[in-house]
């Protein structure tokens, strides 16, 4: 049997000192009781310090070390039992202390390596940044405190943070509107209005955590409070981290209408996405119910796809082009082919019909004026004449009069008629003489808008000079002479009428009047040898005394009706083609009359069936060439642009004329008109198109949902509302006034899939925080060879 190993009596139990740094290095069980000193040095000498008792040295070895030794001390009093020296070893405590020192040293060394190998001076990366930001540069690209290294950011750690200023570094690349740090980038006033409006119409159904959070950590509540980028976007979370991820609860920190989820409390869609009326006026109800059945299967579409398609990203549903969707039925309405009454073109220039007889009788000096004209003053011409304030007033006076019956007109009225008449003549004359450049200049003055060359060209639509000259030749054969005399201050009375001229014998017929001119201008009112000149030279048609070809003089002209022996003369001479005797000549004359008749029977309007300029009676028209005719569109645009400006009065007349239900082109039948905030009108020439540089608040990827639509297809979500006053909602020109053809979207349709456990119900699935402009970072590339490029290459 073995005895007890451990004893605790004072004789056999040494006192342990585990807190000492060093312990004896002797073999186990052989440790000396002296032990090393505090610095780890062996202090072993002898097992005891003998003491002298009388004349003897006595051993003092304690009982714990075996008691008195048998040999006893030496004669000199030294101990006879020396202790072998050892190499003391560190105690456990000492070793642990060393481990602590080593760990701290290794940690500091690790930090030194990390800081030493960082890209930027003294700045280790706290985590990889996203791939999208991997090329932004060093840390100082985003952190202002990192510019000068570790010293800077260590100091910055004790400075007050300025998150708004730091967000400016994000905005160096990210262009998110003019108020980038406002909530949603919206102006504070607008945000307040929106918030107040929503607060009035919605109840707060926030879940308890959000209510609690609002109560414990309320937001400042200021609408102009900046929202630094780092509020939502946290970097250094790894290369594929979703920087735009946002918890649903966080969206509701600011929002007034708060709720639990899309399925629980989310407001119904109400007017979404029909908040703004359609740019193209297309009444689905009337088309589905009436027009398509009438058009028949050949023309009417059979599915929504016939008229709608997705944009390239599959997000928006767009209307297909006019050519592929509307043309089959509507092109005739635009060109006028289907128009039964009224002109098919736009009257651009006209000679207004006047009561010429009265004017003549009352001595109003307007010169020559076609008595047969019954035309009115067309709006374009009214716009152009109205530039001059005097004429503008006169036109207002004339607007209340019947210009074809001026018997009861006052002298003032007649004076106004006179001024307008001369203004019309001047306008036409200047157009013929100065060209379309003058006309476009007048247009620019009239609308008070700077027009570029493209717009000017479109506004005159390559008006041929021959059209103008031809019209003037018919309407005012002596206009050049009259304008010259009028501008010289001469009063030019109305020439005598047909009946009067026979009596007085002073007023020449228009044809004869043409020969009165003495100048050699376009229409021959000079002394030179012009074609129609009535000068004394040998002109072809002159009635002078020379031997002209067609002159009615006494000379022997070829076609003259004189008494000479002309070839075609109907005189009494023995001419070769004398009518009395030559049957062939008579037949030729009949054929010529027949040809004239054929030409005169041509309908000018029908002749211009494919669009362009034509003249009918006393008006010069332009007929639309087809859909999106640039002439009409440009006139509509500039007249719309006069609204809200000083030229609005002039522009309104033209705009109203061009947008009536029966106006040529019928543009306003389908293209809606919006009143902009500035007051100008904006004609929506195109249906909605995706704007790549703008992000909407709410978006819906249509194409992603096609695969899960039921048999109803588009009608799964877009259900027709047969009672909606769709067309009526376009009358007030306010784009926000809208009665959609479709009933509000049913939120439950979305909820069927979009739950937290299903297809997800994150706010950001459908809503963009940064709505509005989304411009890419500006790219400025210096051209090769430029100074900047050279510097870079160096």
């Amino acid at each position, binding site marked *: 049997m073995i005895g007890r190993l451990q004893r605790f009596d004072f004789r056999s139990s040494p006192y342990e000192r585990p807190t000492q740094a060093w312990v004896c290095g002797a073999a186990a*069980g052989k440790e000396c009781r002296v032990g090393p000193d505090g610095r780890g040095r062996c202090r072993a000498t002898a097992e005891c310090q003998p003491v002298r008792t009388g004349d003897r040295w006595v051993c003092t070895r304690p009982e714990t070390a075996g008691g008195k030794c048998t040999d006893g001390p030496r004669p000199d009093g030294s101990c006879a039992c020396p202790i072998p020296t050892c190499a003391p070893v560190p105690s456990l405590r000492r070793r642990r202390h060393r481990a602590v020192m080593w*760990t701290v040293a290794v940690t500091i060394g690790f930090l030194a390596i990390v800081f030493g190998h960082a890209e930027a001076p003294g700045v280790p990366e706290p*985590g990889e940044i996203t791939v999208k930001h991997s090329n932004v540069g060093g840390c100082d690209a985003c952190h202002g405190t990192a510019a000068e290294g570790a010293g800077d950011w260590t100091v910055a750690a004790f400075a007050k*943070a300025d998150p708004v200023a730091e*967000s400016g570094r994000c905005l160096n690349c990210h262009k998110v509107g003019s108020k980038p740090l406002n909530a949603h980038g919206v102006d504070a006033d607008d945000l307040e209005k929106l918030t107040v409006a929503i607060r009035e119409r919605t109840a707060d159904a926030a879940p308890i955590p959000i209510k609690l959070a609002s109560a414990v*950590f309320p937001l400042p509540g200021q609408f102009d409070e900046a929202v630094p980028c780092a509020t939502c976007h946290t970097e250094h979370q790894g290369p594929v981290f979703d920087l735009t991820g946002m918890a649903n*609860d966080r969206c509701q920190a600011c929002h007034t209408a708060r709720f639990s989820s899309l399925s629980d409390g989310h407001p119904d869609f109400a007017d979404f996405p029909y908040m703004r009326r359609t740019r193209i006026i297309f009444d689905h109800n009337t088309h589905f119910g009436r027009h398509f059945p009438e058009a028949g299967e050949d023309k009417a579409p059979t599915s929504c796809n016939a008229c709608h398609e997705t944009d390239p990203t599959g997000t928006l549903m767009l209307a297909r082009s006019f050519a592929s969707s509307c043309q089959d039925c509507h092109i005739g309405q635009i060109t006028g082919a289907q128009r039964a009454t009224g002109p098919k073109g736009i009257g651009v220039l006209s000679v207004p019909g006047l009561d010429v007889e009265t004017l003549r009788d009352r001595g109003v000096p307007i010169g020559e004026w076609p008595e047969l004209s019954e035309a009115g003053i067309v709006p374009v011409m009214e716009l152009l004449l109205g530039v001059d304030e005097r004429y503008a007033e006169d036109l207002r006076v004339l607007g209340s009069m019947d210009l074809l019956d001026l018997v009861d007109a006052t002298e003032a009225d007649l004076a106004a008629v006179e001024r307008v008449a001369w203004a019309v003549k001047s306008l036409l004359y200047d157009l013929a003489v100065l060209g379309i450049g003058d006309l476009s200049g007048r247009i620019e003055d009239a609308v008070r808008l700077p027009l570029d060359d493209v717009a000017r060209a479109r506004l005159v639509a390559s008006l041929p000079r021959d059209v103008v000259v031809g019209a003037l030749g018919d309407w005012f054969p002596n206009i050049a002479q009259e304008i010259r005399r009028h501008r010289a201050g001469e009063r030019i009375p109305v020439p005598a009428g047909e009946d009067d001229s026979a009596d007085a014998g002073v007023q020449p017929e228009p044809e004869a009047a043409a020969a009165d001119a003495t100048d050699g201008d376009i229409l021959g009112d000079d002394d030179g040898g012009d074609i129609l000149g009535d000068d004394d030279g040998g002109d072809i048609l002159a009635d002078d005394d020379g031997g002209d070809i067609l002159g009615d003089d006494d000379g022997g002209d070829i076609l003259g009706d004189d008494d000479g022996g002309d070839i075609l003369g109907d005189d009494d001479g023995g001419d070769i083609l004398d009518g009395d005797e030559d049957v062939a000549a008579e037949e030729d004359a009949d054929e010529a009359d027949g040809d004239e008749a054929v030409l005169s029977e041509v309908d000018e309007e029908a002749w211009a069936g494919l669009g362009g300029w034509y003249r009918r009676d006393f008006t010069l028209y332009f007929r639309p060439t087809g859909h999106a005719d640039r002439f009409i569109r440009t006139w509509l645009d500039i007249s719309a642009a006069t609204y809200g400006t000083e030229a609005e009065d002039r522009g309104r007349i033209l705009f109203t004329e061009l947008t009536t239900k029966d106006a040529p082109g019928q543009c306003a039948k389908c293209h809606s008109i919006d009143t902009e905030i500035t007051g100008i009108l904006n004609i929506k020439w195109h249906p909605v198109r995706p704007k790549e540089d703008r992000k909407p608040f709410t978006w819906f990827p249509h194409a992603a949902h096609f695969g899960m639509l039921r048999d109803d297809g588009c009608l799964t979500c877009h259900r027709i509302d047969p009672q909606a006053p769709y067309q009526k909602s376009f009358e007030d020109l306010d784009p926000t006034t809208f009665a959609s053809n479709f009933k509000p979207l049913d939120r439950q349709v979305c909820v069927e899939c979009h739950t937290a456990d299903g297809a997800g119900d994150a706010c950001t699935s459908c809503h963009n925080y940064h709505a509005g402009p989304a411009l890419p970072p500006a790219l400025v590339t210096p051209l090769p060879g430029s100074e900047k490029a050279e510097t870079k290459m160096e």
Partner: protein
Amino acid sequence: MSWSWRRFRNFSFAALAALVVLAIADLYEIMLRDASYMDGWILLASMVVLAMFNARKKFPMLPLLAAKTWMQVHIYVGWFAVGVFFVHTGLELPNGTIETALWCAFVAVALSGVFGAFFSTSAPARLTRHGEPVGRRRHGERFIYERIPAFRAEIAVAAEELANKSVRETKSSIISDYYVTRLEPFFRKPRNVLLHLFDSDKHLHTLRSEMRALERYLDDKGRDILIEMSQLVGAKDNLDFYRALQLTLKGWLFVHIPLTYGLVVLVVVHVLMVYGFSAGAP
């Protein structure tokens, strides 16, 4: 109040406190604030409290509650710190160099602390069960760790003498041969640390089975010596058990304490960096 109930109550308090921090952080985040700052400072404060336990041990003369109380505070504040740490890191692995080192250091300190807490709780009872019998006392007396090498040497000497004695008295080398081949290496130094940690005595059964197998070749004297040798084997194995457990009780602090100091260095750098680069954070 039972020990287990007290432990359950304290742990519940710690877990509840951590959940409260989690809830506050969530509310904080909802209101568009960065909760990392708040829970980070709470974590740092709890780490300071944990470190104060070590400081308290350096000033035993001060009347600052009993070490036992400090130990309890250390354990449950440690559990709270673990909870706040996961709130702070969001149960995600870090991807920055320093953050990864910081994460690893905290986790290592926490794991070693958890191990230490469990082992410090379970080991004393096991040590008591294996204590050296003293009279009629129910539980034996624990060995002082520093004395174990001397006792082991004492037993080794006794075993060697017993082997020599067997040769002299039995005129047989059966026991001595067995001693030389199997028992001398066993007595020479500590053995079977892992087996003792897991409370296994498989090695002891093996030795004793081998020794029983020798009995048939021994006379009565030889059998008596073999029984005595078996008792020495048992005593040595008990010392090995004590050494294994006490070494572990002291050894886990070789991980926990040095890593704590390393963690402190990393935390200081982390806080400086966070505030140095946080100008953009609200």
